[in-house]
């Protein structure tokens, strides 16, 4: 009896201490999350229920339901986000595929060029597009001098500019998870498919593509959700013609100093984002967004 009990309580204690130490490592991060996430979001909820007269009221939400303009803003936000996500897939998926087929050395080089924009400020990249796309910008000058079109095309301060800018900023968020998923696909699967009689196209659609979809879903979801709350780029390149929820929030505060209305918009946007995530989680395992789990 004494032999089996030997050191048992001491060993259990060591186990406990180890777990607390691990928790101790996480505590600064937990504290930060509490201070900059939980408390502000709670505050946001609270403020959204405060009316213009400073008492509890549902007027901020009522306004959103009554005024058609709000519905249109949400609709635009979802449309722009969907189109941006779609364009990112159309451009990013083939690029990720190309990279995944390269020898690792070259693929890493490509990866660096994909990530390069991250090292430049978002604002700089956005204003760079403004310079490139304006009436007397580089793109219009070249297009006209090469005879591709006659008159300067309006490419900023409208939907086109918004989409170009957003797709450019968002592309890496799609490419990275897709590339990761594609790299993880054993090349023998494609060999096996080919050996069993599948033409290259058939092998791609029946084997490679299905195996890459978790990465594709993860990337698309990431882009879509980031787009829903995107402010800087659509604000600058949309020039006030394309109004997204984030811009309406800003104008509620800056123009009308109505914190209640802005907070209510924020709450609804947050809910819709969580809703989108929830729907998506029924199709993809969300941990794949961080590159973990397979």
């Amino acid at each position: 009896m004494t032999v089996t009990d030997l050191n048992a309580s001491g060993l259990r204690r060591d186990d406990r201490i180890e777990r607390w130490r691990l928790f101790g490592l996480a505590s600064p991060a937990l504290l930060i999350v509490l201070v900059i996430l939980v408390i502000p979001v709670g505050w946001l909820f609270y403020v959204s229920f405060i009316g213009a007269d400073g008492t509890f009221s549902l007027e901020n939400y009522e306004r959103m339901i009554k005024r058609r303009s709000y519905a249109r803003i949400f609709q635009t936000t979802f449309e722009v986000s969907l189109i941006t996500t779609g364009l990112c897939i159309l451009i990013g998926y083939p690029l990720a595929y190309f990279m995944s087929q390269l020898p690792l050395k070259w693929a890493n080089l490509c990866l660096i060029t994909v990530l390069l924009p991250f090292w430049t400020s978002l604002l700089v990249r956005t204003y760079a597009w403004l310079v490139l796309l304006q009436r007397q910008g580089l793109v219009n000058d070249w297009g006209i001098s090469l005879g591709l079109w006659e008159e300067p095309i309006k490419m900023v301060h409208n939907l086109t500019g918004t989409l170009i800018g957003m797709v450019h900023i968002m592309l890496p968020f799609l490419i990275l998870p897709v590339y990761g998923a594609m790299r993880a696909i054993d090349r023998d699967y494609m060999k096996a498919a080919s050996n069993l009689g599948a033409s290259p196209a058939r092998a791609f659609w029946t084997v490679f593509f299905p195996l890459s979809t978790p990465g594709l879903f993860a990337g698309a979801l990431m882009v879509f959700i980031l787009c829903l709350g995107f402010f800087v780029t659509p604000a600058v390149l949309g020039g006030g013609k394309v109004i997204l929820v984030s811009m309406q929030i800003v104008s509620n505060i800056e123009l009308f100093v109505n914190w209640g209305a802005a907070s209510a918009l924020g709450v609804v946007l947050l809910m819709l984002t969580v809703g989108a995530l929830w729907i998506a989680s029924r199709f993809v395992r969300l941990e794949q967004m961080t590159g973990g789990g397979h």
Partner: protein
Amino acid sequence: MSDRKPEALPITLRNITKTYGEIHALDDVSLDVRSGEFLTLLGPSGSGKTTLLMVLAGFTRPDRGSLKFGEHEVIRKPPHLRDVGMTFQNYALFPHMNVAGNVGYPLKLRGVSRAERAERVERALETVQLAGFGARGVDQLSGGQKQRVALARSIVFEPRILLMDEPLSALDKKLRDRMQIELRHLHEQLGMTTVYVTHDQREALTMSDRIAVVNNGRIMQLATPQELYEQPANKFVADFIGDSTFLPVSRAGDRLVAGGVTLKTTRPAPQSARLTLMLRPERIRLMEGETGDANVFHATVSELVYQGESFLLYARLADGSELVVRGAIRDETFRSLPAPGATVTLGITPADTVVIADEDR
């Protein structure tokens, strides 16, 4: 699906060469695989055996050479039109399909109707003793079961040629031994021409009709397992198959001398300038008294190793060269085994006295 065996096809390789920079992965390889034969490509890693298999499957494009399946030149045919079955070292079962999906995949590609597909998939699974496993997910299978599913998938469309790339290397030893026999039976049952790649000499000896020993991108010897073991063409083959020790052989006029002993042999020595005597450990006998017509060496025991079913005895000749003797352990032999330091008489019958060329090619 007809019940007759699909007609097997012979494979003819001529002057297949593949270089990667300076390295000859395949160096002018010519080989005939007979119709319905089980032929094994055996060699150390990097020998070119897998490259050769990949040329057969169409995944590696050689620099030149000819490859015929039956009468048809296929060297420029893409892999998906070659109609050969293949199993991969890591099985390569599609993780997004269940067992039936995997096995039915080649049939689906060939436009086989759903009903017939189900029937043929089930029959293929029966053949590999996995009847009723169709609905299982691939990740629910054990290593041995994955191996069987991969096999079922590679035979379900009745290819006339089957290629296998180290299919058993990921299995544990007991399962591997059983699968060797099973694959052998399956081959007899299905009758397709089979090219099998392995680095495991015992596996090759167990399963093959013929073995091609591959090294440095060349075929060292193509022979039946028995020929290969008893009459290796050169020192590389002798060394690679079985555990041999070698004694240099010198010519003295007509006589062959090794370790100070004039050798009695049953076969003429090869014409090569340099010769060596191949000594298989289990063919050397510990002798006492009458030695008959055996070639006799006197040696000193340097070490004795107990290995359960057998013993290994290391003995040194007067000139310093070392021999290894393996013998079965029965109670009485073990008790009478010589201790290290003792002098022993070692005998080899003339039939087991194999003199080969001391060359690696």
